[in-house]
């Protein structure tokens, strides 16, 4: 499990503008960095659970024709 560094306003700003296409003001980026860092830290705790052989709860179902087609 790679160690994640603390999320900064600069990273938030860059990801929002360059990856997501939703540019943020500096003020918003600052606020989101703090909140998101807390969320990511919570998610890191899940990584410590016995998940090695556990598949995500996402099941693909081949699409069949709808009944009214």
């Amino acid at each position: 499990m790679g160690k994640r560094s603390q999320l900064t306003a600069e990273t938030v700003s860059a990801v929002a503008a360059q990856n997501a296409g939703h540019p943020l003001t500096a003020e918003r980026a600052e606020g989101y960095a703090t909140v998101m860092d807390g969320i990511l830290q919570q998610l890191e705790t899940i990584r410590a659970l016995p998940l090695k052989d556990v598949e995500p709860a996402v099941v693909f179902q081949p699409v069949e024709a709808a009944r009214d087609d």
Partner: protein
Amino acid sequence: MTDLSELDLAELAQAVAAKSASPVEIVDAFLARVEQDNERFNAFVAITADSARDAAKKAEKEIADGRSRGALHGLPIGHKDLYATKGVATTGGSRVLADNVPDADATVVARLEEAGMISLGKLNTHEFAYGPTGEQSSFGPTRNPWDTARITGGSSSGSAAAVAGGLLPVATGSDTGGSIRMPAACCGLTGLKPTYGRVPRTGILPLCWSMDHSGPLARSAYDAALILAACAGADGKDAAAPDRPVPDYPSLLTGDIRGLKIGVVRDTFFDKAQAQVVTVVEHALEVLVDRGAQLVEVEVPHIAYASAAALAMYVAESTAYHDDTLDDRADLYTEQVRAFLELGDQLLAKDYLHAQRFRTLLGHEMAKVLSTVDLIATPGIAITATPIGDETVDVRGEDQSIFSAILRNTEPFDLTGLPALVVPCGFAEDGLPVSLQIAGRPFDEATVLNVGHAYQGATDWHRKRPAG
């Protein structure tokens, strides 16, 4: 003379069957309450009085002609403003969809209309169902009929305020992290979140596809069973809704719970709830024991991680749904919802998938517990309704975020998709309603509802109404 707006669905159905009240009289009685009290609660965001009166006249004639469609025929309902309603604006409580008028009904809306129910209008919601308090909506905050300075809980805030305030006998809601059960608990109502997929979500604005559920906020478990029976079953459009038989739920509510084993999970559900809430819920559990159930102390490993996983679900899926709108109309969202949506841009796909792996793990742990007991009982929510505008709440001497405290007991059953019911079970020291939650095995709504029905057969908390 009986005030018809005080009656529950089953009593109204009996009145119609006995010809002591007609659909027109019933609809008029509730519309009068809407006119009198909606401004205080901000529950309805659209009132369809004319079409409701027309539908009531039609129902009255059908019933008089011997063409009754069943117990729900001619009875009023309101729909959360997340449900598509043909020809009636469906905004999700947001300026983003202020002009959205669907050309078709949601499956649930259509099924309830087919059963003869009459919609009185649309009900306020936390914007796009993305919040547990009912405060953030383009229509303003919904107010709790027990104390209008307090939140109703959300996101099905208008549904709860309308039913608790006597403006409706029942309403639809949706539940992704607890959005049926939290407002039901805050407002002293019965709220049912069925098994994931039991009720099709077609035509309901999504918050989080993998956790969205549809269900009723009602005045009793029996009433919730009446609505579930009319709404459940595949519609061929919602891929999450399996083609399974739909039991006749009301007929299965015998009130006999002798021999049922009810698991009590202290960790997280009880030990992180306000003491005033736990005291009331302990008394409710004693009532179930008096009715013949057996309490068994059980543990659900890893339950404390549920809120983190749920957060990843909301943040990832809701941002994907709103991606296009965030491009050019972000300023139309309320500030809280906009912030949550923009946070979603920062989540990695692997974080989302780790959270989905956690859901599988938690599902297995719940299944193990439910192989040793029939049901799980917890406090409905950990706190009582907080003042509108507050951000933190005292829980055993610790200031906690209201969002985390209110979601804690309901989210695990959205993550695992298990059916869960809240029933009012008394009042805390602050005079506000407290609720008991009963969760069960997948697709075993009948047992869950029967425990609620048994409890309500022995108590009258569900009959308490706020002062007018």
